[in-house]
């Protein structure tokens, strides 16, 4: 089947790629651009492991066709750190021990980042509500919630 040319910005860099019309964004990220931070788990939009930020909104990349993102701006976990410095959320996840197997972590961090970008001071309940859309089978969420609260505090202070 004829491929479709798609141009979009990913982590600040403009990218053009010829993709299959039925290719998911997750496939493009992992298998064409080698950005393997977004993970494939349920593949049906239930788990949130493949979450990326599309024009400021957290989305499941397994449910998006790559031709749909023409002209859009994408952030993946690889684009969070700058000049060798980690994002406050990444730091907080390490400090609080919010990572065990790590499979859900990139999705968790990006879902949390989108929340903190639109709300500087979310309540604990808001964080729980937002994070509950992502599945973690190791940590029991407590450490993840603590990490997001701690990162929110740090980000407000800077």
């Amino acid at each position: 089947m004829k491929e479709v040319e798609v141009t979009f910005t990913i982590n600040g860099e403009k990218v053009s790629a010829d993709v299959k019309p039925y290719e998911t964004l997750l496939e493009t990220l992992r298998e064409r651009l080698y950005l393997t931070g977004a993970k494939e788990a349920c593949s049906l939009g239930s788990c949130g492991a493949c979450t990326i930020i599309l024009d400021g909104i957290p989305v499941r990349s397994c449910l998006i066709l790559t031709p749909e993102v023409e002209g859009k701006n994408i952030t993946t976990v690889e684009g969070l750190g700058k000049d060798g410095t980690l994002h406050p959320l990444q730091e907080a996840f390490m400090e609080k021990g919010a990572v065990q197997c790590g499979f859900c972590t990139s999705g968790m961090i990006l879902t949390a980042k989108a929340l903190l970008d639109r709300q500087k001071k979310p309540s604990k309940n808001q964080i729980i509500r937002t994070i509950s859309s992502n599945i973690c089978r190791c940590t029991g969420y407590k450490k993840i919630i603590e990490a997001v609260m701690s990162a929110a505090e740090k980000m407000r202070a800077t």
Partner: protein
Amino acid sequence: MILPEFEYRKPKTVKKALQLYQACRGNAVVYLSGGTDLVPRIKQRLEKPSVVIDLKNITGLNKIELFRSWLKVGANVTLYELKNHPFVKDALPALADSLEATACETIQMRGTIGGNVLQDTRCLFYNKSDEWRKARGYCLKMGGQVCNAVKGAKMCFANYAGDNAPSLITLGAHASLSGIDGKRQVPLDAIFSGKSGRPFALKSGEILTHILIPTIKTRGGYLKIRVRDSIDYPLVGVAVSLVNGKGCVAIGAIGGKPVYFEFDENETGWDQRIAQVAESRVTPVANTVLSPSYRKKMVSVLVKRIARKLEEENKL
């Protein structure tokens, strides 16, 4: 999970989308908006399209505006945008509750109201991988000979698991549709066929362009039962709306379409009566992870919970 091969098209107007649909006739064509319901179905081979027409770029379908005595909501408006609209928050509590209860926040930011209303019916024996269904033998909804949920049954019992259509029905919402024969506006209930196998009574290629909600301040609420509270589809959903003592109850997630009835708040014991009527109107079968008897009982429980909330609000 890899998607099957299909072509992707991106028209900019409703007219072009309809022309494209006509041009592709003879092929399996589906409309795409947010994709949160459609893409998993394609992945599970429940839909096998040869052409996917993306409606997201159609200008005018992503706005919420006041139009005469209606709140005119474009079909491409996301559930999150609608949930945060001041009029919805202030005047349409049943809809505000059902939007809040739909999936999770991340899905609400991508999923659209049009797609949510037009989602396919669901069944424990249907929404499975192709291998699972093949091993068991295809059910009626897949083109097989017999229902796999109710042994020997020659009809489909899949449930319409949309959260927002029941709320919209209690609010007296209408659907605005565009087809090759022109536009039409119908009460929302009229888009349902009542048949679980093919739940919608839309004409071939017809596009849901807007949902129209009367701009009347209402009281009400929506409650649902689900297993994973953060994301699941409803296994029972109940919406109640009231205006000047006249009310409407709609029950979703049991059967192929929302069931609804009207009531008078001024009648003595209205809350107990509507709970009984609601329970008597539904006949769940064993096609979800919860038992039919539990789901039936929970219909009246949810109605009573909403009625209690309304009475408490009245006292304030």
